[in-house]
């Protein structure tokens, strides 16, 4: 507890430092203190995860009218460690990165407050503390979006985000009120035998809280804020939003819905699974077609969180199959940790690229490997993790999720088999699409030749920014190659969420083993094998063939390759966009201008395709228009006459007097 409190205290000091320190020192002071706070809280989380007892404490007088209760158990610790890693890296990054409006007094203090709120949420022990920290997190991130309020895109994103996040917070509040009203307790830590999810009220509580938490995690159709807000925020903030804040949506689902609402009808969990599968596919598809670097990353967040939602839904639906459910939850926790690390890295790298080249448009990038070699290498590590190839951190999570589902196939009735199959198919398709999107990100954005002046002149400056990227890359690689201890620790967290640790996967230094199935993952063996194989190939190449002929690869016999001959982000995604045209409904413009002398000779072909968010276009735009129309119609109510407004008050007073009597 002392460590946790020290961390929170340092976080408060960071806010004060950001608000009070002089201009030059502000960013350094706040960033260092925030990173230190995250480090302390992270160590506290790791200690709980490594087998320490859950820590708790209550403090009166901190907030008016209520007592602040903190409690950190293994489940909270698993999320707090991820959040701490992301916050630490982003805070260090901002020391070397923040300038202009995002280095203003308000912005720096708000960013520290946002970081602190992110760290408090998983440690909240009762409903009021949780809601207070949750709302602080939502409001500060909203305010941080508005730091750069001169840009219309940022203002529009803030408006969407404000509406969605406040609606979500309201739903969560109502759902938690229903739950704690039934439980006669405001604790978030129910006994294992709770039946708070039973009956109609349980379903209401589930729907409200799940909608709120899932919208934070970017579930379709409540995701519309995410691809707008994450790219528009300042880079460290968008890294924290994407790597940590969305994960807290999954934390809420695991803590409240999985942990608290026992006895819920199975159908609701299947509903969550379907929503998750749709989100994963939707996010992956849009990630494939996005040409904006940060927008691609934002959609890829929806995709990973969708996989997480799918797995959580399956875990809830297959709750009776202990081994399968536990494996699924551990898979989600690993996925969250992996996603936090690699997505924060990618967002931070995207910020560096944008600053160095002046653009985020993948069509204008390319060839960054030349000027930004280290960044490119680090991005490649993150991309490998995101794609889900072995030795990447994402692979461990997806492997556990898939194993959990496969394990459920053999041991459940027809219903369970269908659930598992649907989830498996969705995850498989999603993985494929994610791979395309990530290959596009690395191959089109960083490799090849520069397609724009900005990309050609982009240079990197080594410093604390690269260091924080490296920190995240080390975490990613460690999680990918030595996942055993992490999985063993997270199994305890899954036990907290499910009420029993039975059947959870275990792990040692070199092995991840499943409790239920005789399958194991040995990444270290894979590393050794890959190293040996590489060495053999290198040795053979060195001694086998003496003659080396150098030529341009993939040049098809031509030596005068032009940057315009490469794939662009748009052309790379075009085949898939064509396949999924019915879902994506792209707007394609093909403008042909002819030579003046002859209509037969085409001078310029301009191809433009834009993929709008179909959900936004089909659901939210009409909704906004309808609300707007009602608002316009209702304008006569407020005619501007003082007497009329006073009369409204008078009439209401009279009605209240008569009714209340």
């Amino acid at each position, binding site marked *: 507890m002392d460590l946790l409190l020290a961390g929170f205290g340092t976080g408060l000091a960071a806010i004060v430092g950001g608000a009070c320190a002089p201009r030059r020192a502000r960013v350094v002071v706040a960033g260092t203190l925030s990173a230190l706070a995250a480090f302390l809280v992270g160590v506290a989380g790791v200690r709980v995860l490594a087998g320490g007892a859950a820590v708790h404490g209550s403090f009166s007088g901190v907030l008016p009218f209520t007592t602040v209760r903190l409690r950190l158990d293994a489940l909270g610790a698993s999320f707090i460690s991820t959040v701490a890693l992301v916050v630490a890296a982003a805070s260090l990054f901002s020391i070397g990165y923040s300038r202009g409006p995002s280095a203003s007094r308000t912005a720096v203090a708000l960013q520290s407050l946002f970081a602190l709120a992110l760290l408090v949420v998983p440690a909240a022990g009762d409903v009021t503390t949780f809601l207070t920290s949750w709302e602080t997190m939502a409001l500060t991130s909203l305010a941080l979006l508005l730091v750069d309020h001169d840009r219309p895109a940022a203002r529009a994103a803030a408006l969407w985000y404000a509406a969605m996040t406040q609606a979500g917070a309201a739903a969560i509040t109502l759902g938690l009120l229903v739950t704690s009203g039934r439980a006669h307790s405001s604790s978030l830590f129910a006994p294992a035998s709770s039946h708070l999810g039973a009956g109609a009220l349980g379903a209401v509580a589930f729907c409200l809280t799940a909608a709120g938490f899932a919208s934070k995690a970017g579930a379709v159709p409540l995701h519309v804020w995410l691809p707008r807000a994450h790219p528009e925020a300042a880079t460290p903030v968008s890294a924290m939003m994407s790597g940590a804040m969305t994960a807290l949506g999954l934390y809420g689902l695991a803590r409240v819905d999985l942990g608290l609402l026992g006895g819920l009808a199975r159908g609701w969990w299947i509903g969550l699974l379907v929503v998750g599968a749709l989100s994963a596919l939707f996010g992956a598809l849009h990630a494939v077609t996005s040409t904006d670097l940060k927008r691609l990353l934002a959609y890829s967040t929806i995709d990973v969180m969708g996989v997480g939602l799918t797995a959580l839904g399956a875990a809830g639906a297959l709750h009776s199959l202990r081994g399968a459910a536990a494996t699924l939850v551990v898979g989600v926790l690993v996925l969250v940790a992996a996603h936090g690390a690699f997505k924060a890295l990618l967002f931070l790298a995207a910020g560096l690229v944008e600053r160095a080249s002046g653009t985020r448009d993948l069509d204008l990038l390319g060839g960054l490997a030349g000027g930004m070699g280290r960044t490119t290498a680090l991005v490649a590590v993150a991309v490998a993790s995101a794609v889900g190839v072995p030795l990447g951190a994402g692979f461990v999570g997806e492997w556990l999720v898939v194993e959990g589902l496969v394990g459920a196939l053999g041991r459940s009735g027809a219903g369970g088999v269908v659930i598992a199959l649907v989830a498996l198919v969705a995850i498989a398709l999603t993985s494929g699409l994610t791979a395309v999107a990530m290959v596009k990100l690395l191959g089109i954005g960083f490799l090849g030749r520069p397609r724009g002046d900005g990309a050609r002149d982009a240079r990197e400056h080594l410093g604390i920014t690269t260091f924080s990227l490296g920190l995240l890359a080390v975490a990613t690689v460690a999680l990918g190659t030595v996942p055993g201890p992490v999985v063993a620790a997270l199994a305890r967290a899954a036990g907290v969420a499910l009420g029993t640790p039975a059947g959870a996967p275990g792990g040692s230094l070199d092995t991840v083993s499943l409790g239920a199935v005789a399958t194991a993952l040995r990444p270290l063996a894979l590393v050794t094998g890959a190293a040996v194989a590489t060495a053999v190939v290198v040795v053979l190449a060195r001694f086998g063939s003496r003659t080396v002929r150098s030529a341009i690869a993939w040049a098809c016999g031509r030596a005068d390759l032009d940057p315009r001959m490469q794939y662009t982000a748009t052309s790379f995604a075009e085949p898939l966009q064509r396949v999924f045209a019915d879902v994506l409904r792209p707007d394609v413009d093909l403008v042909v201008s002819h030579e003046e002398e002859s209509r037969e000779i085409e001078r310029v072909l301009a191809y433009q395709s834009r993929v709008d968010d179909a959900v936004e276009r089909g659901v939210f735009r009409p909704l906004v228009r309808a609300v707007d129309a009602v608002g316009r119609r209702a304008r006569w109510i407020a005619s501007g006459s*003082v*007497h009329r407004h006073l009369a409204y008050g*008078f009439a209401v007073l*009279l009605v209240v007097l008569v009714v209340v*009597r």
Partner: protein
Amino acid sequence: MSGLDDGLLDLASVAVLALGVAALWRRDVRALIGLLRAQGVALALVASVEALAGHDVALGATAALVLAVKAVAVPWVLGRVAASDPGAREGAPLINVPSSLVLAAALVGLAVVVGAPLARLSSGHAAALAPLGLATVLVGYLVLVTRRRPLSQIVGLLIIDNGVALVTFLLTSGVPLVIELGGSLDVLLVVVVSTTLVGAMRARIGAEELDELEGLRD
């Protein structure tokens, strides 16, 4: 509490309400301010009768405070504004005087009916008069809604405040002095701010009545 005290209390409480109703009838702004002054005196009388009956020194101080603020300071501030525009009269009110008097009668009836639970809150004679305070609040609100001139509206607001004060004096024998002090200062502040606003309105836009501000919308 002796019979004389009860009688005085009856008289003073009814006076507060009657002066409020009279504000619906008079149109001359200066006459309205006079009514407000008289209402302040009546309210102070209510408080001092209760203070004497209960031998309550703090309540006596409150009575003095009420007299100072509601019968002297506020009317004086309003009077200064009225003096800058001599002969100001309320134009035709939104509801004509006879109708508003009938409405006031209906409101008093409503107050007596819905205020019955108020009267039962405490057992003494004073509590039985509490619906009068509620009636004063409603009448004050009617003044606020139907008058066009800003100054008359401020008078309506102050009548509401006097009604609220009457209820508290009758039900709880007055609130602690600190709260009364805070409340009175708030009222004084509101009056000062609104009179400044009236002056600014007159100077900037030349508007004499609030309805003329409607064009400022959007």
